[in-house]
């Protein structure tokens, strides 16, 4: 096993449990983590995209594409020398019908990796509106690209392209940042234009904007999107989750709820991206650690950070701003600057500015449940 495995050294003996406070309703905490870096074969430590696909994990980096075999831990990588059209891979999605891997290239356009071959679409050979592509999403027979100058959609059967800009969509600005498809809706996170929702059945757009329309304030917490400069949008269980550089929010179709560092357990208001696992659970890539809201109904969070001076990390469980539990563990995240997240089954995959983390969700459960607190206050005892 080339890759480094660190498992939190947890001690939950019966005696300790007996001394612990009464059980509370607490969320699941990831305590087993693996890390991957250049030393393990990644082409670059700066991770921009992660996408889990069964036993395979695709990783987009600042210096190429990588594939991790989850069973063996082996890493295979592709750079421009291997035919990758551009070195910076900022988004990945998988076509569920074909298994083709679609890549958003940051300045290089759009690529499809299929049967060992890269096909390349860019401004000069296709309807891709710009080569700076931040995100990619497969929707039925279409592939969507979120670019810095609008969104493009390619029909993979007919080869027809459609460009969406301010001319044919309610984009106040055209600076697309993220794209996500699920349950018949495409959501675009647009820098300066909030979130745009495209209904596949009706082919109609709907926009979500910050109701106060002011950049320097959020007037009311739960009145809508926290800010128009959005970085990601995920739609799961008919719930829309949104990340921004100013906080994050959730919309269940009727009510909005904003979450800030000052009123919740999210490590920072600066959010590069998100991944929603359900309508009740979502993960946020902040510049100061990984934040997971594990139970939206009770504002219960788990914030993961690594110790900057040692190979250890911790998770802080909180409800609103009250810390319920601090779980110290071995190394969890390679770095606290989080850029990309994916979840698959019980596991979580986290791309950081200096390596990849894989949280193994043995015994994972959704929401909160009564369990004893994890006793790790004194790691020296645990060791």
């Amino acid at each position, binding site marked *: 096993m080339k890759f480094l495995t660190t498992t939190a050294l947890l001690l939950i003996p019966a005696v300790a449990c007996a001394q612990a406070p009464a059980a509370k309703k607490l969320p699941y905490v990831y305590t087993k983590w693996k890390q991957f870096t250049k030393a393990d074969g990644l082409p670059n430590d700066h991770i921009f995209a992660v996408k889990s696909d069964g036993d395979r994990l695709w990783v987009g980096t600042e210096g190429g594409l990588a594939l991790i075999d989850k069973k063996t831990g082996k890493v295979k990588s592709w750079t421009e020398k291997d035919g990758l059209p551009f070195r910076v891979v900022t988004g990945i999605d998988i076509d569920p019908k074909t298994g083709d891997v679609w890549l958003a290239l940051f300045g290089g356009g759009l690529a499809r990796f299929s049967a060992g071959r890269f096909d390349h679409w860019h401004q000069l050979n296709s309807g891709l509106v*710009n080569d700076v592509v931040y995100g990619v999403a497969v929707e039925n027979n279409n592939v969507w690209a979120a670019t810095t100058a609008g969104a493009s959609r390619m029909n993979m059967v007919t080869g027809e392209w459609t460009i969406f800009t301010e001319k044919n969509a309610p984009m106040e600005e055209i600076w697309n940042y993220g794209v996500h498809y699920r349950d018949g809706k495409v959501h675009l996170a647009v820098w300066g234009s909030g979130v745009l929702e495209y209904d596949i059945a009706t082919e109609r757009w709907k926009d979500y904007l910050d109701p106060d329309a*002011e950049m*320097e304030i959020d007037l009311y917490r739960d009145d809508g999107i926290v800010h128009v400069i959005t970085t990601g949008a995920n739609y799961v269980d008919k719930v829309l989750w949104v990340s921004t550089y100013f*906080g994050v929010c959730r919309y269940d179709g009727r009510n909005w709820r904003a979450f800030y560092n000052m009123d919740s357990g999210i490590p920072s208001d600066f959010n590069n991206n998100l991944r929603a696992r359900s309508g009740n659970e979502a993960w946020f890539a902040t510049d100061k650690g990984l934040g997971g809201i594990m139970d939206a109904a009770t504002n219960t969070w788990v914030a993961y950070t*690594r110790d900057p001076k040692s190979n250890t990390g911790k998770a802080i469980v909180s409800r609103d701003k009250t810390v319920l539990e601090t779980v110290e563990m071995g190394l969890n995240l390679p770095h606290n600057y989080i850029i990309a997240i994916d979840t698959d089954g019980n596991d979580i995959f986290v791309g950081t500015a200096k390596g990849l983390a894989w949280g193994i969700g043995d015994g994972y459960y959704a929401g909160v449940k009564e369990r004893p607190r994890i006793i790790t206050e004194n790691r020296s005892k645990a060791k």
Partner: protein
Amino acid sequence: MKPLLLALLCVSLFAEDAPKKASPPAKQPLVPAGVEVDAGTLEILRRINAVGPYEVPDLRLKRETNYAHTSTDLEPYGGIKPYKEHFLTQMEYTGPGRTIPEPTDLKTVKIGFIGPIQSTVSIATGGKSHEEALGVKMLAGARLAIEEANAKGGYLRRKLPFELAVVNDNGLWGSTGNEVVKFAYTEPVWAILGTIDSANSHIAIRVALKAEIVMMNSGDTDPTFIETNIPWTMRCIGDDRQMGYMMIDYIMRKMQYKRIGIVRSSNRYGRFGVREIRDSSRRLGHPVAIEMAYKVGLDDYSLQIDRLQEANVDAIVHWGDAREGAIILKQLRARGMNQPYFCSDRAVSKEFTNLAGAAAEGVIAGFPWDPEARNPRFDAFRERYKKRFNEEPETYAAHAYDGMNMLIWAVQVAGLNRAKIRDILATRSKPWPGATGDIPFSAVLDDAGEVFLARFEKGAWHYYSREQLQIPRGYIPVRERVARGLETEEKK
């Protein structure tokens, strides 16, 4: 007990060994001789040099209590305590970039320039581009700064020349993003100066954030440019928010005009430029009577002027380029409409006064600096600029000169590391002593310095500060809005 004894023995051995070691080589100074740094910057440099890749240095982040010198009566939703205020605490970079080592195989130290310098197609006009006149001046200012730095020895740590890597800000189909990607990855530079068009500037800074490279802006006055929470974005020119505040204070608080008409370009410059004028008018109790937009490049503005005339306005504000501003002014006057005419800073140009002719007399424009100030730095710059380019420097040249000098200074202090260059600029404790005046950075790394009003009088522009014109302003609070009581509560 044994490990303790062993440790003590080791300490003892090393202690005995210490005097036998060869003398370490003479310490390199933290900053090369000839580069001005104060104690605060040196301390920051020590801190950023000391951190490992997983640490975030304590950079003494700025904390402000008021965003953009906004008086209470001009704050949005002034009667309501907002749930959250942004932009008061300085943004920080928490990534690992500070530990990337300086490359050894360089022949030059490249700094990027992106600006509109060649004619192309413009999104703003839907036709020919329109900002080359400004971009060419901007390039000249930047070039002069690079040449002067090279005359003083270039990048002093390694005696390497600076090189200005220049690209045209085409703007078409978001090409600015492609250019910044090149600067970041394929033809790398250490920092970038640019650009002017607001839409293109926004595209550029989004790439800069992801690629982690400083983007210094010296020509885009759109207030929202800096309201993006990007720790890599800086601006060294006063923005339309500040100029708008001063102009509305002059128009409404000093001159007591009540009915304002706005005529503006339909592009982003016009749309966002008048925002503070429009909002402030409403907040002061006198909503703008009419706002008319036009497509850049028109010759006939009778439609807009008809509407302004019908609205019976006391004063007219134009936000757009010099050409359109002058043509509209002449057509207003030809119609017998002699209301005071206020403009954005782009009117302060030969193009405007040449086109407007006698009608230019009395026009007032917001202006980001005071070219008439007794500033020896500007005098010296002006002489050198005239010698180099055989013409007077103007706004875009002067601010690009300042912005490029700030980048060069940061490179000299920080070394060749993009994150450290950012840190040094972001944490500068004193205002930058620029040719255009002192440039202090706010928490959002915007130029928080003074802005002015320019008035065309007897054939020349003259510049006035708020104090000189005795322009009143509203109360600027010293507490954050969320820490204040509601207005009604305070009265109790």
